[in-house]
């Protein structure tokens, strides 16, 4: 019954993180009474659980996630949306407009192939295909701004504790940033320069996501960029 490593040390798949009975949290598994890591990440020991905070990883859609995706195909009554997950997501007409579906409806009027959308995962169906919705505030087709991609496992870090990181960036740059849990980030600022600052900051966060004291460092970094621009 003991923790085998220091808090926040880096582990790789197969590393023993806990000896004895404990709840195996994210990115860990139990074998023979011990807990092992399944991903490259940082160990996190909490009161009753051992977990590994992944440093790498693809996106696994979960109900409630906000995602940024691309419409890839139109079928009868539904769109297929690429959200960088294991498979395409489905957006049905009922989740796209507030009216009942009629065959006379021209679906391309609402969304066309190639459109970028901000959507919410409302359900996972029997095949674990995510079902999206664009009914709601700030959801729907993206009209302006641009989208960048980062590793989905670093999204929590970009948001920070209670949104501390992202709120700081919003305040300092006055850009509108929408973070999709699938690793796509929509940036919409007043000028191209503002947007570029946000982009470079996000890439810095991605590169240093595993270090401590990041919010403060990013704040300094932001200030240094701003002074340079002046």
């Amino acid at each position, binding site marked *: 019954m003991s923790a085998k490593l220091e808090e926040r040390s880096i582990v790789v798949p197969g590393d023993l993180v806990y000896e004895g009975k404990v709840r*195996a949290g994210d990115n860990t598994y139990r074998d023979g009474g011990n807990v092992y890591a399944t991903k490259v990440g940082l160990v996190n020991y909490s009161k009753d659980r051992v977990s590994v905070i992944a440093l790498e990883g693809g996106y696994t859609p979960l109900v409630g996630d906000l995602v940024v995706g691309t419409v890839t195909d139109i079928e009868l009554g539904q769109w297929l949306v690429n959200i960088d997950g294991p498979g395409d997501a489905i957006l049905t007409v009922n989740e796209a407009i507030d009216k009942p579906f009629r065959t006379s409806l021209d679906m391309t009027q609402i969304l066309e192939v190639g459109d970028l959308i901000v959507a919410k995962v409302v359900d996972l169906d029997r095949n674990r295909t995510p079902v999206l919705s664009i009914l709601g505030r700030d959801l729907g087709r993206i009209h302006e701004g641009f989208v960048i991609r980062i590793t989905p496992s670093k999204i929590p870090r970009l948001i920070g504790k209670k949104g501390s990181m992202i709120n700081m960036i919003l305040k300092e740059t006055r850009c509108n940033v929408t973070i999709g849990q699938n690793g796509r980030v929509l940036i919409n600022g007043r000028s191209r320069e503002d947007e570029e600052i946000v982009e470079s900051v996000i890439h810095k966060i991605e590169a240093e996501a595993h270090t401590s004291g990041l919010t403060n460092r990013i704040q300094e970094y932001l200030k240094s960029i701003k002074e340079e621009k002046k």
Partner: protein
Amino acid sequence: MSKTRKRKSNKTWERVDGRKQDELRPIHIESGVLPNADGSAYIEMGRNKIIAGVYGPREMHPKRLSKPNEGVLRVRYHMAPFSVDPRRSPAPSRRDTEISMVMRDALEPAMFLERYPRSAIDVYVEIIQADGGTRCASINAAAVALADAGIPMKDLVAACAAGKYEGKIIVDLGDYEDKKGESDVPVAYMPKFDQVTLLQMEGIMTREETEECIKQAVEGCKKVYEIQKEALKKKYGMIQGEAAPEPEEEAKTEPEEAPAEETQEPEEHLDVDEAEEEKKQ
């Protein structure tokens, strides 16, 4: 065999490159070398130079090959035309197809494929320069690339060959020893489970010699395993070094509340995972 070698050391037996019997070639592994792949690794094992790229889990094409209850691991082993002398045809040969298959079988036991129904994980392994033991080096690179892609694994898979050359059991055969030697036994191994996932044999040996070979190869795998782990950690080591030593209150975990227009990474995450965990138990 070669007279020059015998003249050089007429007292003690020596391998062609002067290694000890149980000594591996120098290994260098780097992870995350391909920016467009989900995960990647580059390995130099002696004069072998190999790049492995991992894509996925992603939708499978053609769709009919996907399985409804689990994911599919696809491995492509390919030797570049210039990797060997004389030039080799770039078309996949019978040997390539077989090595792709044995690599897949070697890596599969370490993975949780049941978590990715209807999807595929693709591993592309490209041999840039070959110097004997490419299948082992490829497995080593592929395992690191899979971990670099953030694909959950039970353990890393390490591989190493052992064989018989001039009547002696040696580890990690080079090209010359591979071709002139009496026998070659490539082994892939998961150290945590003490499980062999690949065992092939070529040539003739007695039962005792074969057992000794497997034992030696497993020892070699354990050495490789340490290098693989180091390579994965190295990518993060550098930046962590310059960070403030005392851990701050910063949350690397899910924020409890995200700003309204952003998103919540909600408790549901944990609950779903837990539920799955418990079902498995």
